[in-house]
């Protein structure tokens, strides 16, 4: 039985059905069928790759601009969007590099278009500068990072989870960050929509952190279109242009955002700015600005923290995992239960902000926690940070470019029990 953690909203998304292509009228469809074309019908099952599901999710969320530079294992996102975006009056640009890609995305977003880019580790490193710009200028955008082995060019075609900390702290300076991590094809779709919603809602970049296994894996997914889903679009100013204060401090901490070209003239800069957008170094203004950036995220943790628990009620040993490793972990937990070991699983769909409340609960109830991940210990570090001696924390770190197997996790479960 799979139960959703309280204060988690992914279930709402999982239930939401989606229409992926404009439905053809029945007469047109019949004509197409006569000509032997495969026509996608409502509610039809499809076999989609993670990257393809991300594209479907992005289009569904209203993404109409993509600028990127192809890189394995994220290339399929660019490929597919270059075909799909023009059909929905969107724009696709292949830029000269990843620095320019995110620059173009920020520009498009400032003009009011939901925008996205997709890359892998080496490109993600190049994007860090502009990622910081998006944070300080509070420009909504979605960055997909399909992780591969690193550092540098690393292992282009092999999976890894080693960008967890880069996603959080890759760009310099204090900044909040929202990072989501899918482990199924369905979640690729749902979390992409969620990523757009969160970025629009909180005016912050959102990173979708995917690993190569999930990005290239194919599973069945039903994109059944009719049911409405939550699509959030940035709040626009209701005041006349001359009254508009672009970085006004509000109770939510999220100022209204005007589209460029609408007559609301304001200044966008990477320098720390005052409420009107002009550079400032006055300590009181700087302090208020940085604190507001953090406040807009931290007072809404429950809206963005998503995960799943599996058989944790009576677990004596719990596994905390994310991405493709969560799938291995689930198999290991099932196998452990068959052997009479009370094991459980907490799957993280939100990596940052770190799901402290849920992790603390698991640490308290099980007393023994295993964190398997395909890096030298990035999330386990966070788990140990919030642990404060309440539980024993064990790690499995695999950095050879292959996925952690259920046997490896089961072995650890049996070892620590």
């Amino acid at each position, binding site marked *: 039985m799979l139960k959703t953690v309280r204060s988690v909203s992914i279930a709402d998304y999982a239930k939401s059905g989606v229409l992926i292509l404009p439905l053809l009228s029945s007469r047109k469809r019949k004509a197409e069928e006569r000509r032997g074309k495969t026509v996608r019908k409502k509610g039809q099952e499809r*076999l989609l790759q993670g990257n393809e599901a991300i594209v479907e999710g992005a289009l569904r969320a209203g993404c109409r601009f993509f600028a990127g530079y192809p890189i394995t294992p994220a290339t399929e996102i660019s490929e597919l969007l270059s075909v799909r975006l023009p059909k929905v009056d969107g724009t696709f640009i292949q830029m000269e590099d990843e620095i320019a890609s995110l620059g173009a995305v920020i520009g498009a977003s400032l003009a009011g278009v939901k925008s996205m880019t997709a890359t892998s580790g080496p490109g993600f490193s190049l994007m860090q500068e502009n990622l910081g710009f998006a944070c300080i200028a509070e420009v909504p955008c979605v960055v997909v990072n399909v992780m591969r082995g690193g550092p540098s060019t690393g292992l282009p*075609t092999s999976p890894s989870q080693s960008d967890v900390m880069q996603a959080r702290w890759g760009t310099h300076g204090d900044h909040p960050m929202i990072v989501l991590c899918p482990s199924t094809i369905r979640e690729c779709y749902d979390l992409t929509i969620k990523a757009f919603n969160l970025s629009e809602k909180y005016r912050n970049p959102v990173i979708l952190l995917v690993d190569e*296994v999930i990005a290239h894996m194919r599973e069945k997914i039903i994109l059944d279109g009719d049911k409405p889903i939550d699509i959030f679009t940035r709040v626009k100013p209701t005041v006349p242009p001359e009254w508009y204060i672009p970085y006004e401090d509000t109770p939510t901490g999220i100022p209204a955002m005007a589209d460029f070209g609408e007559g609301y003239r304001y200044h966008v800069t990477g320098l720390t700015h005052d409420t009107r957008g002009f550079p400032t170094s006055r300590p009181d203004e700087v302090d208020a600005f940085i604190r507001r950036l953090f406040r807009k995220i931290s007072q809404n943790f429950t809206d963005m923290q998503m995960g799943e628990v599996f058989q944790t009620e009576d677990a004596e040993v719990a596994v905390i995992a994310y991405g493709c490793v969560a799938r291995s972990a*689930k198999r290991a937990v099932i196998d452990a239960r068959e052997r009479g070991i009370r094991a459980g699983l907490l799957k993280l769909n939100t990596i940052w902000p770190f799901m402290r409340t849920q992790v603390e609960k698991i640490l308290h109830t099980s007393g023994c926690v295993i964190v398997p991940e395909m890096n030298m210990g990035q999330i386990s570090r966070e788990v140990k940070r919030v642990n404060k001696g309440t539980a024993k924390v064990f790690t499995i770190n695999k950095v050879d470019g292959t996925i952690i*197997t259920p046997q490896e996790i089961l072995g650890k479960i049996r070892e620590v029990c």
Partner: protein
Amino acid sequence: MSYRYDIRLSGSGGQGLILMGIILAEAIGLHDGKYVAQTQSYGPEARGGSSKAEVVVSDEEIDYPKALKLDLLVAMNQKSCDDYYMDLKPEGILIVDSTFVKQVPIQGAYQIPFTRMARERFERGMVANIIALGAISKLTPIVSPKAIEAAVLARVPRGTESLNRDALKMGMRAGQKAKKLAASSVVSLIENEDT
């Protein structure tokens, strides 16, 4: 009780293994209606280098998406055959492209020269993967010939449908023949034992 059926298609880059995996997954998942997870692993080279595609089939949602112990291994070159035959279950099926696989490590493997057939009959080595899919549909219980045909025709580029249909049929005939041959060799083995 749920089951898992693990398939690995292996060979070198450029032999069309990943497309084969996708078609097989679509046939089983969309046309035969089971749960599937298809994954792949390949090197940075466009051609050459080792390449494999895996398909896991189950009657419930699949957790671990990679193949564990293999029910079916298709090896399109010698290296992949040598590397992976150890992962086969005792009752697992091994199908090799005998154009490239000269040494078969275990008894009872089906040896069909997919690439040679593709070159001789169609003058195109690249349909070897489709011929292999035809053979798989006859040699294993996991996918029906009808489903594989529908999946192949839905995936291949326009204008190549008849070529691919012919290749598929050829594979099915080859599979049928290999099966009969294997059955008769078992019979002859038993007969030999008796005498």
